[in-house]
């Protein structure tokens, strides 16, 4: 049985990474607005999740946000654009880590089901 709640939350976590990577390669302001919006959504979606790695997932999402918010400000101020790109890359790394943890959690849950 497919868990639609999981599809919904995982969708945002993956979209956060893909939109971020899109910005890193295109340097496009539209893509940046989408990236920061999706990253914030992905963070909020992790609020209150009671999973094994909930704290770590929330932390990585907050790290990504705190990279992207200064990146957005710097990018639109047109001052340190390369730094803005660098920050976006940092955020992308945090997104990758959160996806890795998502996979670890899936494995944990699989084992738990077996024990029962």
């Amino acid at each position: 049985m497919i868990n639609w709640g999981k599809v919904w939350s995982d969708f945002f976590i993956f979209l956060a990474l893909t939109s971020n990577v899109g910005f890193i390669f295109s340097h496009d302001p539209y893509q940046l607005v989408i990236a920061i919006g999706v990253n914030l959504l992905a963070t909020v979606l992790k609020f209150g999740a009671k999973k094994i790695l909930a704290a770590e997932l929330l932390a990585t999402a907050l790290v990504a946000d705190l990279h992207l918010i200064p990146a957005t400000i710097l990018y639109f101020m047109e001052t340190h654009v390369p730094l803005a790109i660098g920050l976006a890359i940092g955020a992308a790394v945090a997104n990758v880590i959160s996806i890795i943890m998502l996979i670890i959690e899936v494995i944990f849950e699989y084992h738990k089901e077996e024990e029962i």
Partner: protein
Amino acid sequence: MTRKKKQKHYGNVRPKNYRAIYEEKFYNILFQLRYPLMTVIFFTTLGVLILMIINNKSDGESVLNYFFHTVITFSTVGYTEGYQTDPSHLMVNRFFATVFIIVAIPFVYMYGLVTTVNVFMNSNIDEIYRYWRMYKAMEKLKGHYIICRFNGITKELMKNLKRRGIKFVLIEPDASLEKEIREFGVEYYVIDEPHKRSVLLGVGIEQAKGVITAFEENTQDLSVIVTARLIRPDKDSFMVFATATTEGAAEKMKLLGANEVIVPDISVGRRMTSFVLHPPSPVLSGFLEKIAYGERTDIDIIEINVGENSDLVGKKLKEINMRQETGATVVAIIRADGKMKIAPSGETEIKKGDSLIILGHPKALRRAEEFFEHHKIEEVEAT
């Protein structure tokens, strides 16, 4: 799977973490904010993006303007655009704004923002924070007492402990008394069943000095005594005091591990008898008993066992110069055979196994304890 860690003698029970309970409650508030905040973020991003597309501008100043425009729109503040728009885009802009208002107000304003405010208003964050702070401080307690049940007896007890600066945690199973407990000014309390191992571990029984249980029913007292003794079996390092309704129950409690058990009816009866036998004088009335019950903080009474290997044995009271050195006075000597010598003179000799009853200021008594300890050690070194 084999468990490597050795199981504790009282079973495999984890302490109840009261702080974590309130941390989770705070986390649950965040959970309620999930969808409202998502709506706000989604529509803000959407508004900025569409304005960027229809105006075909993506420089920093415009994006900030579009962000501002979106926020004032869905928050129903609503100026006009507040910035110069290219006339060729003005109509499209206005058309979009109209549609956006129609869609965004119910979702973002009515649902997103109103629910967020509502969650904060209804979730008693200050209350959760208060509990969280109390339990965080409770985790650091050491050498405290655990008191079970909030009633007349324990109220009096807590009042006196507070005056002496002794820390305690109250466990009360009846949640309806919480308001009263808080008004009474109890610093640390939990509303829970005190006979559970997890609860006693949660209030730090492993670092505590003792437990005092004063239920109206013997069965509840018994279960607390037994549970506490399971975790802390040593009678010298961990005290258990209890009340009982009958002498039979009191005896049983002592056999099961209580250090002292008081039967309130019998104690009160004896006090009444003492009034009849010794009519109270206005000056002396209750003087000794005030000392014994710890109502006075400037004077206290203790019992010190001289022990067998002390160089004080065989000396006369006037020879040991205890009063001059410590400021405390010997008011009675209890001999090894249990005979008591009240108000001993300076000629009285200290014998093996004597216990001295010493009266004085609490600080003087500390010094007296050190005085006897000092004399004991010297003897040990000499042999």
